């Protein structure tokens, strides 16, 4: 009895301290989310000043979306994301490897870390505005190209499908490669220096070291980066929205899923927007599940799995 009383329980303070978050999450995120799902089964929009609905229509919104160009916009989103992500991960890996390599003795790594992170601090919309002006047909980039004699006619960057897509990808790359670099640096620094030293004694060259030691050992973080980037990419809208004036020009080839969602919200079409959100929610949910599996996976070097396998074989 006495011993029990001595054990003071502080855990309630923990709950009290996290209560504000859960309260505000519940009110500002959870309830609206449930509402979104509810409205997705209704016909509910505004025509001029008149509100139409909400009338229950069952799965009609979902079916209509499947018949629309939604899949095409999903593919657009994916393409835009890939164009940005591939250079992002390659450059970030390279920089991270260089920055943590003690033998390279790069001076001012702190300075460069700040510099590569800087583009991320600019608002995406401001960044897109900047590119829109720079790459316009009579803009400075074309003026430079023409005065260098590289091109006779101004290049219509924003008028061509691949021009627009590459610009969007390029911007996303610029904005996020610093972030990824820093994350990967942390991962590489987490590898025990013993392994690197041992490999050096064994005569490993830097390529072998990178591909056979660094890369396998940071695989969990790499996967995490990949998945979070996919989820972020799924929600991409700010850059293409500003760059193409919300039209996804040319020919709606740079229209992303969220831009599609926004164009429904312009008419306050809560029903359709809700249904689209639910689709996005399911896809993000699946992706999140993978992240969760990965970050909770304690078996980093694969030894546990190997042990399990060995045990199984023994039994069999």
């Amino acid at each position, binding site marked *: 009895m006495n011993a029990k009383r001595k054990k003071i329980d502080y855990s309630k303070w923990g709950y009290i301290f996290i209560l504000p978050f859960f309260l505000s999450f519940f009110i500002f995120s959870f309830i609206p989310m449930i509402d979104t799902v509810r409205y997705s089964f209704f016909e509910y929009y505004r025509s001029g000043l008149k509100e139409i609905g909400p009338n229950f229509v069952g799965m009609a919104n979902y079916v209509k979306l499947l018949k629309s160009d939604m899949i095409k916009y999903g593919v657009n989103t994916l393409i835009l994301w890939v164009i940005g992500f591939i250079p992002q991960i390659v450059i970030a890996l390279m920089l991270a490897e260089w920055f943590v390599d003690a033998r390279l003795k790069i001076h001012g790594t702190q300075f460069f870390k700040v510099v590569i992170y800087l583009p991320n601090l600019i608002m995406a919309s401001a960044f897109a505005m900047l590119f829109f002006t720079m790459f316009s047909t*009579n803009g400075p980039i074309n003026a430079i190209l023409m005065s260098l004699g590289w091109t006779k006619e101004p290049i219509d960057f924003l008028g061509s499908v691949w021009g627009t897509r590459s610009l969007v990808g390029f911007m996303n790359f610029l904005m996020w490669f610093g972030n990824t670099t820093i994350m990967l640096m942390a991962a590489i620094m987490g590898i025990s220096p013993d392994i690197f030293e041992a490999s050096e004694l064994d005569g490993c060259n830097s390529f072998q070291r990178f591909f056979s030691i660094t890369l396998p050992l940071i695989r969990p973080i790499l996967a995490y980066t990949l998945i979070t980037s996919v989820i972020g990419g799924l929600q991409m809208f700010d850059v293409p929205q500003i760059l193409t004036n919300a039209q996804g020009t040319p020919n709606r080839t740079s229209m992303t899923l969220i831009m599609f969602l926004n164009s429904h919200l312009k008419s306050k079409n809560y029903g359709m927007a809700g249904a689209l959100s639910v689709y996005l929610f399911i896809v993000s949910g699946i992706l999140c599940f993978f992240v969760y599996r990965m970050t909770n996976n304690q078996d980093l070097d694969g030894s546990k799995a190997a042990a399990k396998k060995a045990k199984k074989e023994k039994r069999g």
Partner: protein
Amino acid sequence: MKKRVVSILLTAAMAAGCLAGCGGSRGSGGNGGEGKVINIYCWNNEFKERVEAVYPEVAETSKDGTITKLKDGTEIHWIVNPNQDGVYQQKLDEALLNQADVSADGKVDIFLSETDYVNKYTDIDANVAMPLTDLGIDPATDLADQYEFTKVTASDVNGVQRGSTWQCCPGLLVYRRDIARDVFGTDDPQAVGEKVKDWETMEATARELAAKGYYTFASYADTFRLYGNSITEPWVKQGDIVVRVDQKIMDWVNDSKEWLDAGYLDKTVKGQWNADWNQAMGSSSKVFAFLFPAWGIDFTLKPNWDGENGAWAVTNPPQEYNWGGSYIHACTGTDNPEHVKDIILALTANKENLLKISSDFSDFTNTQSSMRQAAEDDANFASEFLGGQNAFAYFSPVAENIVMAPLSAYDQGCVELIQNSFSDYLQGQVDYDRAKSNFETAIMERYPEIKQVQWPD
């Protein structure tokens, strides 16, 4: 990837929540039945400047420009939201839907609308803009001097006028004098006017200009208003769910394609209101002319021109047209009907006030008699920017000949989206049919109740 966006959104949501909590709650006091606060919804400072300039009851405006005090102690609260991307209409619609539930001083008393969407607010079923007669304004006598087409524009289906404007926006052709001298050997507005008097002559002139390496207009969007103003049927008939694309609109597409291919338009300028378009108004550009109403010359051309004054001149356009115009509406449920009536009369019916607006702000104002007067009064109405030319002499006859195209509540979306869809076609990105189907997709996204698009045969 988008953590930051999320956090910005959260912050914004919190800030918005705070602001919503702080606003509102102001005690209302009796003032002979009139409320203490007049809430005016608008999208820029244009209206405020004009009220300050001519409304005699104005005492002073606060430093931040959000509150104007009248001599009797009533306050005008200016609620300004930008027009771009439909923000203004969203905020206004929100306020109008809550109109019945807010306290007297929170009610919208006056709101403004543009020609592109005036129809949405004068709608008889929506009934958000009060008929002027309910305020005690008789359009037949009080507004007799206004241009007829502005009165028609602000009326509902039954012809009941539900708004009034100080401004009337007849458009002209503004051209570069140096290019005119180079190509035609003269820069006289009358002689140039002959060269652009209708579309056929215009095309011959365009050929002449192209031969010397000049573009007639900057972009295909420049001519859209002229075609769009002469449609015979509204985009969407009252209560209908079909968008009817007029033959005139398709004419615009076809003519623009021809002109682009012939090199009469600058291929690198894609639409209006972008950096390329602004640059085309600079001294290094090869563009001969723009089609602008009075506000366009003042707010758009002038700031973009980097040369001397007097380089531009105006003349008659190939076709009479109207572009823009801000309508003042008394909002249903206002608690300040007397003040509202007073303001509307002072700003849209008082000839002296309107003449002052014309000379102070170079607006083409909405009184026929005084505009005729201004057209002859070179001493007071000559424009410095136009090198001493009196533009009113050209505006006035255009204004009198404008026939307003039939309006619908869907005009803004239709005009915006058809230009966007066919931009791709004009730039050679998609074929004709693809542009059509892109328009259909876009219009049904914007207006879910639209079920069909009918194209001319």
